[in-house]
């Protein structure tokens, strides 16, 4: 069995702002193996988030291709792309992005319910996950009633509920203090190992990167040393 989960080739992405064109990625080649914990390092503006967005199917590249499990995600239909984001990828954001109208349990259930998993099944899974991230007692709390670290734990549980093969975390500790950040990374790593999920963390924090099996550095839209 091929051990490569995702393969990005010659990825390029630019944004046009008025008359100016900003080249964020300038030909990125990246191989990600199954079960791997990869840290994507780079200064602010190096293109880490953009690369994660492309890999996660949130945005499309101007050039190059992304093969997930051997399939080019650029060829996916709108529905297939939505299913890809829902079932195969779990996203964790720096700003957590929890829905304020929903409590912790409902936030965690959201991707499962979007994917039309039965309410009972989704709730059971969400309770297990919230227990695993240490929030068993806070399932009824709304996001504004939780600390930053707790909100990120809810976001981690949400990313895992649909059982995705690939977890993409974009500066997950960026809004947290150092100690909480370390706890979050350890929690995330432990959960991914347990579930044999692949974890890619984009970070500018060297300490976070040291936890990873492999570190890839992005500099000015290119993989350093490539």
């Amino acid at each position, binding site marked *: 069995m091929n051990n490569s989960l995702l393969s990005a080739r010659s990825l390029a992405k630019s944004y046009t702002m008025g008359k100016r064109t900003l080249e964020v990625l300038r030909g990125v080649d990246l191989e990600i193996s199954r079960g791997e914990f990869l840290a994507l390092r780079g200064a602010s503006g190096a293109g880490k988030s953009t690369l994660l*967005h492309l890999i*996660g199917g*949130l*945005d499309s590249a101007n050039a190059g291709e992304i093969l997930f499990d051997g399939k080019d995600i650029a060829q996916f239909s*709108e*529905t297939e792309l*939505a*299913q*890809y*984001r*829902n*079932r195969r990828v779990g*996203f964790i*954001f720096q700003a957590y*992005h929890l*829905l304020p*109208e*929903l409590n912790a*349990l*409902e936030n965690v*259930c*959201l*991707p499962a*319910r*979007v*994917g039309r998993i039965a*309410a*009972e099944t*989704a*709730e059971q899974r*969400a309770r297990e996950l919230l227990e695993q991230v240490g929030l068993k007692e806070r399932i009824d709390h709304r996001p504004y009633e939780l600390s930053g670290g707790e909100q990120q734990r809810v976001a981690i549980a*949400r990313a895992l509920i*649909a059982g995705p093969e690939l977890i993409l975390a974009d500066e997950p500790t960026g809004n947290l203090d150092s100690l909480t950040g370390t706890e979050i990374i350890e929690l995330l790593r432990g959960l991914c190992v347990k579930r044999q999920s692949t974890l890619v963390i984009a970070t500018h924090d060297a300490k976070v990167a040291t936890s990873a099996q492999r570190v890839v550095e992005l500099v000015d839209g290119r993989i350093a040393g490539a």
Partner: protein
Amino acid sequence: MSKLPFELLLALRYLRPRRSFVSIITVISIIGVALGVAVLIIVISVMTGFGHDLRERMLAFNSPIEIQMYDKPMDNYAEVMRVVSSNKNVTGVAPFVLGPVLVENEPTNGTGKSFATPYVRGIDVNAESSVTDLPKKILPGGSFDLSGQSVIIGSVFAEQMGLEVGDRLSIFSADEVNKMLRERGTTNEEAVLPDDYTVTGIFDLGYYDYNANFIGVSLENAQDLYDLNDNVHGLFVKLVDPDQAPQVAAQLENALGPAYKISTWEQQNGALLGAVTVEKSLMYYIMFFIVIVASFGITCTLITFVVMKTREVGLLKAVGASNYQVMLVFVLQSVVVSIFGVAGGLALGLFAIYIRNDALHFMNWLTGFELFPASIYGFSQLPAIVSPRDLIIICGGSFIICLLAAVLPARHASKMNTVEALRYE
């Protein structure tokens, strides 16, 4: 967690956000739709009631079909009545004499007008109840008695002339006045003396025009007034179903031949009935614009929502919601607003219809101005009929308009770029 689909769950949660002005905007949208629906229900129900009552009151005094002869009185009416009665759709036939007369009053109380020119109707006392409701419309204190020199008069006519039951009045027929004018200056010249009648009953048909302009005498007296001998002006024909009048008229035309002029009540009152129908259709169009304007409130509310929830839309798409699912979240919000708005409007409209006459009297009292004058509309009470068909059209139409109002903002939300939405500040 709720077992509701997440789209509906989110839509409901969005509609009752905590500590937000949005809930007030939502309430305003609901009130807007409710008022539009309520006004539509009130106006259309009154229009329907007006049309229905107009028909009812016309049929209380007129029959669905009238048979006359071209250019002359009907001389063989007993035979014609026999032929007409044999039609299975006919439930009653009565002869009539109808024409204008000059009336001079002799009120006991010394008030009222001296002269009037109403129409007199010669009534066959035995047959009348089989064709009109007139015998049942006599006010207390009088009776449907046309024996001897008796006359029954309309309530408005009685009031204008200052007449009461037991008062006397004089009737000059047009034929007699005409005869006097013709013979004036000739050797046969003679003065025409009016016939004196006693008022035995005052009728109220609930329709101003009839109450003001008609008086009734026995068929024999009317035949005398018009020098008809045993002839009559025509026949009133009552049917099992008044709406069958055109078909039955055609059948009677075949049975009686071309010498007879057969007209239906809808032909006679075509202009008025047509105007009422056209007015109702027009009201539908005009009033639906109120709902359309109210639906703009929903559009504005949803645009505000979509902008406020941009980052959440980005998140929904990031966790795999399809464009259709995102769209559904916002359309369902409109569905909920519409359901509350339409249901509220329905309740408000039906309640307003229920208290309409009290409200009208209150408004008359408050403004000191008669808002629904009987002399113009012919009704002393505000009529209304709530037809299920109208309610379905109003509620269903309003609901669809409100859903369409949601399409633009919902579509905008569904087409958002995920990454840009997530970064939205």
